[in-house]
């Protein structure tokens, strides 16, 4: 039996592709691995990520909404409390999913499952792995956003066709967080350090005008919150949900474009540190 002297021309072709120092143009192999692993073992974990914002919407939106009553929407119109917080919950879920995938998940696969170690003994480069993993995170974000938008529709919280744009906007938000998150993970070495990420995310979730308008805070706190990424995500999705677009919409989108570019630059710069430990 000859397993090696096959001299297949395809293996020669695969060797004679053009390679970069950190990239082999094969991120799709990392993506198809992710899809196969999801199908084989962890689709149940995927479901929990979908239900989290839905449960928040039921308890806070429907429950609290009963005592809060109607509130003022971004265009000045009256909307139900559930319709007010639903886009914010979608933004939080886009952030959580992307950050989880790009920090904890990458950290675990790097240090415990040794998954990347295996990948990087092949002709894959670190950039293939980073792009593949980010794409998978965004694909998951896309599915969640679509599901949550459907739930909003079923609950009668969508009043304009513009609301469908919340889905691509959520993917942009996830892209911003995933690219920064992966860059940050390259600096972290222990579980204790990983906990700092939660320490930043929880206050962002609670105070970024998620459940009530920013105007309740004194001005200097408002400035602080407006500098944070989640506030821009919440405002962007809230505006889209009712179809009200202003100059601020452009700023919110611009914020995420810049964040994505900076995040990708950071991640690319730190690629060797991130994957070649």
């Amino acid at each position, binding site marked *: 039996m000859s397993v090696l002297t096959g*001299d297949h021309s395809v293996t020669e072709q695969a060797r004679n592709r053009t390679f970069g*120092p950190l990239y082999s143009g094969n991120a799709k192999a990392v993506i198809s691995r992710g899809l196969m692993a999801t199908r084989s073992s962890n689709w149940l974990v995927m479901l929990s990520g979908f239900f989290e914002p839905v449960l928040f919407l039921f308890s806070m939106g429907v429950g609290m909404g009963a005592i809060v009553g109607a509130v003022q929407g971004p265009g000045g119109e009256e909307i139900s409390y559930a319709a007010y917080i639903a886009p914010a919950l979608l933004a939080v879920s886009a952030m959580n999913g992307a950050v989880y995938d790009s920090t904890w998940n990458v950290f675990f696969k790097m240090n415990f499952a040794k998954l990347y170690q295996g990948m*990087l*003994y*092949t002709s894959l480069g670190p950039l293939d792995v980073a792009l593949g993993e980010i794409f998978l995170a965004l694909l998951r974000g896309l599915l969640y956003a679509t599901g949550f938008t459907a739930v909003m529709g079923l609950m009668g919280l969508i009043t304009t066709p513009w609301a469908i744009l919340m889905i691509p906007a959520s993917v942009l938000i996830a892209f911003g967080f995933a690219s920064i998150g992966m860059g940050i993970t390259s600096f972290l070495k222990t579980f204790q350090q990983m906990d700092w990420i939660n320490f930043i995310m929880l206050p962002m979730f609670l105070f970024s005008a998620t459940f009530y308008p920013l105007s309740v805070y004194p001005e200097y706190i408002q400035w602080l919150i407006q500098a944070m990424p989640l506030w821009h995500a919440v405002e962007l999705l809230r505006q889209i949900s009712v179809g009200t677009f202003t100059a601020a919409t452009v700023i919110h989108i611009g914020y995420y474009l810049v964040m994505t570019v900076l995040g990708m630059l950071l991640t690319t710069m730190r690629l060797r540190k991130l994957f070649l430990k």
Partner: protein
Amino acid sequence: MHNEAILSSTASAGNQMKQQTVISAENLTKRYGDIAAVDGISFSVPAGESFGLLGPNGAGKSTTMRMIGGTTQRTSGTLSIMGLDPDSHGPEVRAHLGVVPQQDNLDEELRVRENLLVYGRYFGLPMSYLKPKADELLEFAQLTDKAKAKVDALSGGMKRRLTIARSLINEPRILLLDEPTTGLDPQARHILWDRLFRLKEQGVTLILTTHYMDEAEQLCDRLIVVDKGRIMAEGSPAELIREYSTREVLELRFGSERNTTIGAELGGIGERLEALPDRVLIYAHDGEAALEQVASRGLRPLTSLVRRSSLEDVFLRLTGRSLVE
């Protein structure tokens, strides 16, 4: 392409390929802070050779392997794999390699056959090639009936064989094996050696690290003995034994109290004497004759054994320490 010469020679004249150098390292060094894990080693490996790095744990063998694969960057020195620098051409270098790491890093979220298919995709190979190839390799690794099993349901030996099968998915020119049989029971080791020997027969260049002398003797055409990041000796197993040891060794045990103090009473027997905490080794051309001399001096060891010299003795001679501590 840089490697056209090598590839065309593979196709036309298999024997000519043996003259080609596939790996060459010059003053290869890796430092972590003040510690030199690999301290200026130089070697070169011709195509088709089975080349070993023999040394104890922490000698710098795995670090050298990772530098060859471009997954650890060297501190200084030059390194060339198929004419390419792995630091600047990582993905291209690894397209030629099959890597079996010290610890299995199989994809636990995938099943056995999926592990092979997905790994082949990482090399950019098409499914039409990978599907029959995966079945062929499962056969080679004697895992055909486990194709749909989960990875964590496999025994240690099976996981190793799957890792080796996986490393062959791209029909590599060079196979890197880092401690391939560590942690396996004797039967599993012999199955694995048989598989590796077949690969060697097919002309694959094997680069192997081990701290088992019997493994090195069975599989390596030539090896370097490494200790504390440096090369202590280089040659074929037989050459090394001839140069650094005698034909036979007499092993005596006098009990832990006496082993270290009895040396003086054994002076003059054999060519060299090594007193270890658990036994005394007498290096002699004729072990039985040496044993008779011991008896004629009225010394009564608890046990005695005459055996052929091995690489273990070479290592002991070179470093004053045992390979497996």
